[in-house]
């Protein structure tokens, strides 16, 4: 029966080629626009660290101006001062502590006559690599000793490794980093990229991962060029780098992993004690406040999903509805014109159900064709999005969401746009049409 309906649908569609094409196109554009925006939205609103959502936490401490709260986000600074970050690290209460900042360095190969070039780098502690599931091609995180030494070791991204050393294993090789010799201990896979970049949302949340990683505590030795954010509220003027490190300037991101509720409690207690102890030293003059944010809360606080994203998502659904209604109207017009035909079939003994399913089959054919075409169109749509937003190369790509979305939308399109016309035609009285024949 199904095959017979399919054949009837095909014949019926061929009889009115223009109208059939219009219906398919309407559904295709609706689905394409919706898929394009939906893909962008699902990626940008996803939490790449969802599997560790109750294990790792971004730390916020309110060390800000006693007279006014922090000017953005949730009113608490998103970064820490050096002294606070160091205190968290030295306390050794959390299962692991990551403190880090974004810096800019120049890199050059030894014995090379080429000019040095500037790269985005992350100065961090070793647990960064395990905490954020960094994938290595060669080597792995540096040792605890390298953190505390600190030693001049470096982890570089695959692309940079290939650029400097060709496609060979670069472990053990050395590079000049800001003019000093560093040894490569790990190469990070190009495939490792969190979207959005949960660990550092100060900058563009969809920007590419750093090219270079090296031990955080090298900041004690010299002021690497700052490519991240620094904020300060005090009048106090720092006259040298040592004073800067002890100042109230916030510039360090801190994450901790707390594997059990006990550790969580312990760590909270540590923070409470730390703040009250600092209060005695004249710091932390605002009401005592600290926050341990899950990755999801962190994405939320930073409004990674912008109002633009939300507005476009709503618009894309409105557009889809317009397209579906349009195709419904066309289908309705077409089916009603075929009413006499259906009348005869009813008179010859076809049941309402079979008339209904025959027409729904036709709608299904239109819906599927529309969805397939829509999937192809959205390929183009996503390419368009990539070229419009320079920083969305990691965001606007066809993924399982897009394909699943296409299948679901095709079903929805069929049901929504085909149901009403098919129902109308199967419920019209056959006698009326027989009379006019």
């Amino acid at each position: 029966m199904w095959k017979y309906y399919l054949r009837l649908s095909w014949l019926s569609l061929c009889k009115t080629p223009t109208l059939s094409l219009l219906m398919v196109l309407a559904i295709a554009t609706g689905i394409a626009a919706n898929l394009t925006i939906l893909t962008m939205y699902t990626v940008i609103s996803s939490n790449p660290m969802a599997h560790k959502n109750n294990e790792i936490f971004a730390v916020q401490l309110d060390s800000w101006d006693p007279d006014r709260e922090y000017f953005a986000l949730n009113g608490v600074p998103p970064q820490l001062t050096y002294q606070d970050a160091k205190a968290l690290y030295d306390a050794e209460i959390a299962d692991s502590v990551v403190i880090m900042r974004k810096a800019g360095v120049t890199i050059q190969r030894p014995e090379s006559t080429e000019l040095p070039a500037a790269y985005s780098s992350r100065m961090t502690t070793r647990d960064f690599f395990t905490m954020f599931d960094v994938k290595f091609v060669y080597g792995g995180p540096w040792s605890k000793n390298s953190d505390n030494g600190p030693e001049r070791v470096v982890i570089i991204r695959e692309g940079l490794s290939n650029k400097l050393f060709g496609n060979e294993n670069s472990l053990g090789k050395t590079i000049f980093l800001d003019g000093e010799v560093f040894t490569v201990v790990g190469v990070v896979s190009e495939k490792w990229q969190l979207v959005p970049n949960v660990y550092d949302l100060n900058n563009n949340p969809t920007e590419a991962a750093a090219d270079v990683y090296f031990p955080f505590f090298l900041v004690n030795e010299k002021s690497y060029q700052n490519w991240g954010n620094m904020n300060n509220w005090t009048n106090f003027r720092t006259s040298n780098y040592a004073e800067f490190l002890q100042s109230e300037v916030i510039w360090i991101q801190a994450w901790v992993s707390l594997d059990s509720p006990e550790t969580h409690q312990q760590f909270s207690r540590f923070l409470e004690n730390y703040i009250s102890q600092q209060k005695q030293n004249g710091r932390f003059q605002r009401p005592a406040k600290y926050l341990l944010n899950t990755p999801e809360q962190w994405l939320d606080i930073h409004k990674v999903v912008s109002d633009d994203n939300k507005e476009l998502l709503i618009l894309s659904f409105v557009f889809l509805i317009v397209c579906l209604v349009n195709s419904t109207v066309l289908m309705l017009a077409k089916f009603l014109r075929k009413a006499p035909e259906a009348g005869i079939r009813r008179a010859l003994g076809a049941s309402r159900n079979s008339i209904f399913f025959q027409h729904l089959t036709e709608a299904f054919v239109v819906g599927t064709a529309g969805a397939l075409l829509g999937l192809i169109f959205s390929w183009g749509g996503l390419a368009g999005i990539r070229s419009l937003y320079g920083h969305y190369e990691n965001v606007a790509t066809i993924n399982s969401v897009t394909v699943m979305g296409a299948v679901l939308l095709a079903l929805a399109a069929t049901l929504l746009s085909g149901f009403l016309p098919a129902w109308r035609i199967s419920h019209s009285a056959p006698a009326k049409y027989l009379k006019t024949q």
Partner: protein
Amino acid sequence: MLELSPIIKSLWRNKTGPLLIIIQLALTIAAISNAMFVVSERMAKIDRPSGIAEQEIFTLWMRQSSPGIDLQAVIERDMTIIRSTPGVIDATPISSLPFSGSGSSAGMRKELAERAIIYQAANYEISKHGLNSLGLNLIEGRNFYDDEVIFFERDNAPQNSVVIISQHLAQEIFPDESAVGKTLYKGAMPLTVVGIVEQMVSPWSDSDRFNHAIFVPTIVKEGSINYLVRTGKDDRYFIMNSLIEKLRALDNTRLVVDENTMEKIKGKSYADDYAMIKILMVVIAMLILVNALGIFGLTTFWVNQRRKQIGIRRALGSTKAGIMRYFMLENLVLVIVAALLGTVLVYLNSSYMVRTYGASLLPWYYIPVTTLFILIVTLAAAFSPVRRASLISPVEAVANV
């Protein structure tokens, strides 16, 4: 207008089709007027005056990391070379670039007291060539003097200095009097206001303090600096490329990169707004297309379905124009009902956006304008099938179809 009543009656008899069309048109009118509003808001944002000679400026980033080099000497040598290049109007070292998205912002106070109000402003460190290089209009006071420009090491910061501020900032801090001659505090450092420029923008185009900026003539001698060069419009690219080569040739251990025209920096700063505008324009165009094709297809079918009635009306003396008027009026009725429904939808959405995101309320005239536009589109789309309807001969009424 006599036909209005039969039109409404006939639409009412076959409710489903017309009702769906009305929903479709209403959603379209709501979506388009809303999208147009967002587009116009973004365009206004991009078009805000910047005060700088955007089309005459390019920039370079210089990084000198070799130890033991006096950055002041390097910058002064480079500046002499740049300014003596034919075609260059002026050049300055500058700590950060307008529209670039990165820079520093300073909290300014009228008094040193802890609890004094803080006025945040973008902070630019420049030489006395800065105003001319940027093409700014000094409306009050004076430019920096030669001896006011200080290059300093981080450890040895100057104790006080002078400052030139933007008019927006001046009016905010000193609404009733001239700011020139007054003292402001940047942190603990007193700055005497010596001049006011008509307009200057910050590095952050999304900032609500976009027009609040200060210039100080104190340049920190640390690893890197931007060079901002103003030239004639036409030979800008040529000068930019030849200058990079010249500067690189002077010393091959340093970086001279990130050559950018001001338009390019500005374009990047508004990338998200441009993207939003383009996406919305595409959606608007597709909405119009889908509707036009839909109306075309539908009218064709309605006409075909009613061939016999049309024939009868023609036989009973209706003119061709009369037939056309009937169908066009039918369209008009649909669009008007849709516009009423669309207005409700737009205001529901708009007031939601106002409450949730603090957006501004959609001005009322967007809806009639959009409605008129959609009316023209639907009438145009319906024209060809309706014309064919008017050509149906009265004979069809009697022929046995």
